[in-house]
């Protein structure tokens, strides 16, 4: 009676991503960046903190591929290690802020009574720029990576909460949520098994875009001297140290800046491509 027709499988997200030029490029770049950060200690040509006062401010050459900075440290080595610090700060603040924000968002969508209060709280957080949080926290705890991570986490919470609440509200209106309620499961099971998995694509897309922004903000705070402290290698801090020699040896500032630019661009492009790839309307 009911003949089972073999429905074509939905193309995987990866395949959808690779269909798009921007998606392919950004995916390759992001994977490369993460890989380099992961294996930095093994591929680094020398110690990033080793100074050679006989070879300061050297432009890129065959010994120092990316040149040396004001204290004669190898910029390539510092870039590799700095990438780790920069990415770690970005990921940490994204995960901390993202998880808290997502919980707030799900609660606001699920417990409608709390919605108004929670969202007004988020609006308050939203009204402070991230840099201001960084300044305030650096004043309280002293400058350092921890202050940067806390500041960026707080700045991420309301954004993630809004995104999650929005997509959760859409899912909440669907019949399968009502069916789950009618079955009589607990709220926790309903949110975890039915609500959250169906909001994942929005969370992924936003996280990817936000990671780029957070890395940029983290580098900006380090550049302002509120984040990573010398001699720690961090892309923003490296750019800051080179600014005194901008006219004598521009590569000291320019190379880390280009690094930041490429990372942020890669994550932003990936976020855009992911949004298109996950959009069910574009699936064939």
């Amino acid at each position, binding site marked *: 009676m*009911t003949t*089972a027709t073999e429905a074509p499988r939905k193309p995987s997200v990866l395949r959808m991503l690779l269909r798009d030029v921007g998606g392919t490029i950004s995916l390759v770049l992001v994977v490369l960046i993460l890989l380099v950060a992961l294996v930095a200690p093994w591929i680094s040509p020398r110690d990033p903190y080793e100074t050679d006062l006989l070879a300061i401010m050297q432009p890129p050459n065959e010994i120092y591929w990316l040149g040396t900075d004001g204290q004669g440290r190898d910029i390539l080595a510092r870039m590799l290690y700095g990438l780790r610090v920069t990415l770690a700060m970005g990921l940490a603040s994204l995960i901390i802020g993202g998880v808290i924000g997502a919980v707030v968002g799900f609660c606001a969508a699920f417990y409608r009574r709390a919605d108004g209060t929670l969202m007004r709280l988020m609006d308050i957080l939203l009204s402070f720029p991230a840099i201001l949080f960084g300044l305030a926290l650096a004043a309280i705890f002293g400058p350092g990576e921890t202050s940067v991570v806390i500041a960026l986490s707080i700045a991420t919470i309301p954004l993630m909460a809004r995104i999650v609440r929005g997509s959760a509200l859409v899912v909440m209106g669907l*019949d*399968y949520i*009502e069916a789950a*309620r009618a079955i009589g499961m607990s709220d926790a099971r309903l949110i975890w098994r039915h609500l959250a*998995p169906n909001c994942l694509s929005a969370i992924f897309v936003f996280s990817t875009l936000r990671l780029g922004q957070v890395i940029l903000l983290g580098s900006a705070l380090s550049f302002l001297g509120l984040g990573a402290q010398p001699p720690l290698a961090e892309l923003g801090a490296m750019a800051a140290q080179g600014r005194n020699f901008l006219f004598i040896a521009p590569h000291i500032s320019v190379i880390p800046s280009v690094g930041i630019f490429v990372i942020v661009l890669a994550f932003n492009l990936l976020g855009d491509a992911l949004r298109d790839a996950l959009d069910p309307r574009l699936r064939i």
Partner: protein
Amino acid sequence: MTALLEAEGIAKHYPVRQGLIRAKTVGTVRAVDGVSFSVRKGETLALVGESGCGKSTTARLVLRLIEPSAGHVRFDGVDITTLDRAALRAFRRRAQIVFQDPYASLNPRFTVAETLREPLEVHGIGDGRSRKARVEELLSLVGLAPYHAARYGHEFSGGQRQRIGIARALAAGPDLVVCDEPVSALDVSIQAQVVNLLRDLQRRLGLAYLFIAHDLAVVKHVADRVAVMYLGRIVEVAEKNELFRNPRHPYTRALLAAIPHPDPARRGRIVPLGGDLPSPLNPPSGCRFRTRCPFAQEICAKEDPALEDGVACHFRDELPPAGLDFSGGLAPNAARRLALFAEAGRRQGTP
């Protein structure tokens, strides 16, 4: 015959608030306003009415998916509006729901097996192996094959999805299934299959249905009794054949008269309803139907007629006979569909 489900004066009022800081209630939407009915064991009560009259809200109220503003719902003699968490879970095992939209009612990330296993897991029915067997049993019960279990919802057609939705509702072994327009989103030929499946399941499992519909051809096929809703109230309740043969409330007559008639000689005796459904935010005083009723008198604006003897009308005994026999001549379209239903039923036999 004992009542399995009894609704007594249930109501759902939604306050309309205005103001930013201190919201003030400026009005109340009376989506459902004092509805009483009962569903007996193994019987089908159809709830009909135009869109916006509160049918679906009533369905959700009797399952306590939304909290009633007033009134009581008794299931097997127990008032479910006051149940605590544990008792409510036990109730959910016995009363289930099938939804209108087969595309929105299945979690896209679940396989069919996961969807059907979930009620068993939530209620702690059986162990791993017996659940697997139960899933296969449920699939065959609704006319699907065991190999469908591993597939996702999007791999099925609308009718098949609706079967999965029915299987999910049956998983925990309910006594009552609320069907919220279960076939109105389906093609006519698929409607016949699903309607017959529901009837077949009712016979085999002794289910009671609260069947929400706006399609009178479907109602005529499945219902034992029919309740007609208008603007949050029930205006008439009757045995199905009685209702179609002798509609007593003016609204029921208008509803039945709206079915196109094959015989031109019988057309046009009843003036079709004018105007629109009044807003439930500000329902008319007295009888709610009076603004569109051809028989309205002064008393109708003053007094709200109670549902007595199955009809909520001041002139229940004085109205002229309907003058139409709705039991026989249905529109050619509807008649064809009924024939289709019957034929599909025969072909289906008992699976």
